[in-house]
């Protein structure tokens, strides 16, 4: 059933292209319908998986031969990690559409591209054949380019091109690694499970792992390959930034976990510590740079780099708790980043037409748009890792895993969390609660927060709060999967 998330998205995209361009209401409604349908299917499918006997392991959805010459199968399946990310995609998709309600220019094309992107993302999370996974991964690149280049803001064409090229280079690296793996395994199959059991020679694994991991991790924002992220996020329109930071960066992390780490465990152990170092650098560097930004959106963009550093560190701890924290952080950050970008982009920038913190300071926005201020307070608290929200549970699992694998990094992560508190607070005060001595009344009153924005914000806030209070909802999906045979070589071999 979960495969329908993919099909609904692509069919929705095609239908949206056929809608007339001068009726934006139709496009919005259609897109929302498609996204909601996808979300419902996703929830139903995950519940079905959870209740099925295959729960905790891999549950096949469809597996038919596709391209005989390369032994490629059209193989879709789901396990706990995929399920969590599919849910994230569904929620983020709906929220993104709600926050794009005010797009007037070429609406049908916008939503068509948006749904195509969502379809590609669903596809990546559900594919268990490497060729198929790669196909969906690359399909997601082109809609991103157009979404940013056409509807974006600051330096959009440059940002879009940079993002597209970085993604393409990353996937080129992955393609090389995949083909090499296929050939070395005597051209047997592209199936993930089959290849994961093939004993690749360690010398091969050492470079193949690095190639594939870095190829995916570029999209995940691994330092120092993260430079596309701040530019890209700032250039993108709100819904695209929400998706970019919320879901697309997770594509990279998911690929790194699902493909690189599972196929090449020996290579993983060789490169475990260097990559962990890079992850920690990313956490602290991202946070420190966020602390000094003048542009509101850049702060959030760099904070995404910092949060993804947590995910990658969690991966490298190679403990069940660290990996579980990493997957949960993917979900949590997806929601929280979506919220933050929604506030910055849709609620603030679309109204004030500035993102410069110095210009926002005299506006005393907490009195003008209190809903935005409150949403940002809660989203900021979640982003900081304040307990009661999903980010805390995720970060605390990652730190716990780090204690078991790299104790010094656990301490450094604490420092990173602290800097996170500082920059979030700084931006919260400057943008909303500045109580400036020389308030400048706005030239014209700002439009009030619309209903779609409120619904979207409440949706995302509820998710992060519910998971923060009752994380079992997701942990019960993730942990059994991490104990399944597919992940066994990862967790066993690590320090535990």
């Amino acid at each position, binding site marked *: 059933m979960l495969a329908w998330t993919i099909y609904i998205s692509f069919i929705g995209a095609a239908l949206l292209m056929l809608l007339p361009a001068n009726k934006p209401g139709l496009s919005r409604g259609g897109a929302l319908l498609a996204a909601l349908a996808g979300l419902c299917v996703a929830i139903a499918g995950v519940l079905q998986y959870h209740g099925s006997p295959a729960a905790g392991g891999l549950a096949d959805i469809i597996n038919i031969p596709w391209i005989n010459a390369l032994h490629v199968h059209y193989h879709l399946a789901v396990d706990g990690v995929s399920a969590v990310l599919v849910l994230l995609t569904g929620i983020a998709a709906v929220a993104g559409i709600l926050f794009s309600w005010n797009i007037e220019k070429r609406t049908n094309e916008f939503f068509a591209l948006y749904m195509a992107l969502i379809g590609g993302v669903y596809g990546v999370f559900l594919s268990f054949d490497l060729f198929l996974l790669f196909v969906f991964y690359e*399909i997601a690149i082109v809609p991103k*380019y*157009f979404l940013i*280049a056409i509807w974006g803001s600051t330096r959009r064409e440059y940002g879009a091109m940079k993002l597209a*090229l970085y993604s393409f280079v990353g996937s080129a*690296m992955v393609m090389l690694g995949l083909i*090499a793996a296929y050939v070395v395994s005597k*051209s047997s199959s592209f199936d993930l499970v089959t290849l994961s059991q093939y004993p690749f020679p360690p010398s091969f694994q050492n470079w193949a792992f690095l190639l594939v991991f870095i190829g995916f991790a570029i999209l995940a924002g691994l330092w120092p390959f993260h430079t596309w992220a701040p530019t890209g996020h700032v250039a993108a329109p709100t819904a695209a930034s929400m998706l970019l930071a919320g879901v697309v960066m997770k594509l990279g992390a998911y690929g790194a976990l699902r493909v690189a780490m599972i196929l090449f465990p020996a290579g993983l152990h060789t490169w475990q510590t260097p990559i962990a170092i890079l992850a920690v650098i990313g956490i602290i560097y991202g946070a420190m740079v966020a602390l000094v930004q003048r542009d509101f959106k850049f702060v959030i963009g760099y904070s995404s780099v910092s949060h993804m550093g947590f995910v990658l560190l969690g991966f490298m701890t190679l403990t069940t708790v660290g990996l579980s924290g990493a997957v949960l952080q993917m979900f949590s950050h997806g929601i929280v980043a979506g919220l933050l970008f929604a506030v910055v982009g849709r609620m603030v920038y679309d109204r004030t037409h500035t993102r410069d913190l110095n210009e926002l300071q005299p506006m005393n926005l907490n009195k003008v748009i209190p809903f935005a201020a409150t949403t940002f307070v809660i989203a900021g608290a979640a982003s900081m890792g304040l307990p009661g929200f999903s980010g805390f549970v995720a970060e605390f699992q990652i730190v716990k895993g780090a204690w078991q694998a790299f104790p010094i990094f656990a301490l450094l992560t604490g420092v990173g969390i602290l800097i996170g508190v500082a920059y979030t607070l700084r931006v919260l005060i400057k943008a909303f609660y500045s109580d400036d001595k020389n308030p400048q009344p706005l030239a014209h009153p700002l439009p009030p927060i619309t209903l779609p924005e409120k619904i979207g914000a409440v949706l995302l806030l509820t998710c992060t709060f519910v998971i923060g209070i009752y994380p079992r909802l997701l942990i019960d999906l993730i942990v059994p999967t991490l104990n399944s045979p597919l992940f066994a070589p990862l967790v066993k071999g690590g320090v535990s």
Partner: protein
Amino acid sequence: MNFVNLHSEWLRLLTPELIVVITALVALLADTVCLRQQCDCIRIKAGSIIVSLGCLIAVAWLSLYPANVHLQMLSITPTVAFIKQVVLGLAIFTALVTTRFTKHIGEYFALLLLAVVGLMLLVSSKNLLLIFVSLELLSVSLYAMAAFEKTSLASSEASLKYFLFGAMAAAFTLFGMSLIYGITGTLDLGDMTAKFKDQSIEPVFYVALVMTLVGFAFKLAAAPFHLWAPDAYQGAPTPVAAFIASGSKVGSFFVIARILFEGFGGRTGSAAWGNFLPGWMPFIAVLAVLSMIVGNVAALLQTNVRRLLAYSAVAHAGYALLALFGKNQAATTSALLYYVITYAITVLGAFTVISVVEQGNKHHSDLSNFAGLSHRAPVLSICMGIFMLSLAGIPPLSGFFGKFYVFTTTIGGSENLRLLWLVVVAICASAVSFYYYLQVLKQIFVNQAPEQSAPIEASPVTQAAIVVLAILVVLLGCLPNLLLGQLESATVTPVF
């Protein structure tokens, strides 16, 4: 076998060519005798109908009477028959999308069909002399067709450059062939292999090899023999350029594969990294690498779409040549042919779109003319988008699978992944190419149309042709088995 029988055998085997020749004469006569008084549109329509009918009959004949015969100079296998059908199909499309650029319509169609005959003979022959003769038939027809637009200086220049280069290359080839005859004493490809195996390695062989291949490298527009391509593609009338880019490439690639595998099979050599052995493989490797690098780097700087396609053709020749490094004939042929056939379809479609946008004026094929095309001609834009993305190698289009399949074949072609370096170069070049294809797409979809943009008119036939080609590109990309199946069933029997 006596004289009559032999020749009746020949005639039977060459019936498709005969049909095409007769069609050419019919088209010429019809136009000269009956239609001189009519306006150009009717003459073109009539001509294209005659051409299409004739080619269709030939295609049908090829399907109805499969043959697998090896005569003295001819070798007709199912693969050869399939390629002939493809070439005929491309010719039909070329004829259907012919625009009004000359008064000599009958002559034009006749020359087109003569070029087709040349191609068909080219792929059927296994005797070096016959290969040369058919190559010349093809080339001379194309030289003449390139000059057909008498009112355009660029057309004459293009044709002259094409002719001079081509004649020079043909001279080299002839000389090389004579050297080969001198070494082996035979012109038959089948006998040559055995003779080469007996001989000890002599420098003169390599001279012969290189010189023979020069002519074909010229035809393929492989660097450094590509200098004619940009001017020819830019100056020649659009349908001619389209046919040069598509049809002649298909045939030439097949012939080069045949010569190398069948003729020089004993002197393969090796291009494996760190293990270079003299033979034709290192030479092809050099050609391929040069083509990929020169083609992509030069394309980055282009502002004219036709020249951009020319340089991209150079690059794609390089990618296709990589298929020659496969482990065995079957793998090589199916990868090579899949790539070249889908490339031909794509490029034919792209040129047709260009001809529509140009509206008959050659100077309108600059990039800036495509600005905002998505508003002026939405269907055409989507098709052009499909063609460009397929050339860039984005799934699920055929260009992606073609590249993927070729790369897999190349890497699988040696032990220990020694040919990986070739694929690394190819992938880097691919990443570079993504940039300039995106530039075209950016113009079409992102930029605004200028105020006084002329409306785009295209005849329904042309539009239908473009859409059919685009659908083919997508279909063959999503379900490559359709084409691969045909190729494989054709290669069950020995390829050549």
